[in-house]
């Protein structure tokens, strides 16, 4: 496989930021795909009734976009060994999410890079924090 994440990968390398506007239509499509129809994601009136500003994206949809950002850097999602994060703030329907990351460590013997990753919304909120990804490097 041809990847950006080859032998030249070094600490401090950054992911190409991935920005995506997450519309209500996309949230509805994710509800279909995942089977998670929790009304906080799909029912505006309900979401407001439980104190949210409106419907919010599924955390796992955000994590899916973060996974894509890492996979694009790695060249393939097959290289993604692990991914974790905290869902710190909700992402509201219609907001844009931007996923970023940088290489925190490279284990040449194992051929694995560890990246610190996170995501912010266009409201300036850090929606995904404490993010970490492990990626197999191709050689």
């Amino acid at each position: 496989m041809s990847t950006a994440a080859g032998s030249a990968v070094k600490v401090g390398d950054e992911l190409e930021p991935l920005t995506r506007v997450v519309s209500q239509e996309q949230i509805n499509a994710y509800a279909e795909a995942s089977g998670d129809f929790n009304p906080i994601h799909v029912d505006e009136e309900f979401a407001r009734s439980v104190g949210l500003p409106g419907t919010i994206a599924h955390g796992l949809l955000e994590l899916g976009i973060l996974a894509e950002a890492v996979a694009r850097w790695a060249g393939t999602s097959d290289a993604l060994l692990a991914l974790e994060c905290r869902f710190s703030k909700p992402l509201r329907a219609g907001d844009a999410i931007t996923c970023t990351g940088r290489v925190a460590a490279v284990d040449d013997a194992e051929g694995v890079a560890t990246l610190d990753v996170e995501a912010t919304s266009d409201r300036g909120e850090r929606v995904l924090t404490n993010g970490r990804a492990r990626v197999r490097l191709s050689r």
Partner: protein
Amino acid sequence: MARAIAGPDAPFEPEAVPPTYAAVYCLAPAFAQLFTDEEVGINLAGLIHGEQAFEWPARVRPGDTVDASAEIISVEDKRGMTFVTLAVEAVRPADGAVVCKGRSMMIVRGGGA
């Protein structure tokens, strides 16, 4: 799933299983049991996904059958909320490969558990 993640954009790898499809084959069976069990009595509307970790020791492919299992690791009450941590795992019986290991921290507002 790949289209839902891509939204307005073209799916990154339309023929592959997106890594976070683990939400469906690994997490959903456990969540369905735990959070819709009337005896457990968790109010779905108060449920928040707090943290998620996934590992993919082997990659799952379209057409694979997997067995998912889950274990409740901890339940803590703090500040009027209940924090439930689950460990999940999905195994492909055809070759015994672990295709996903996960850890989910869910927050139940109003202390439903």
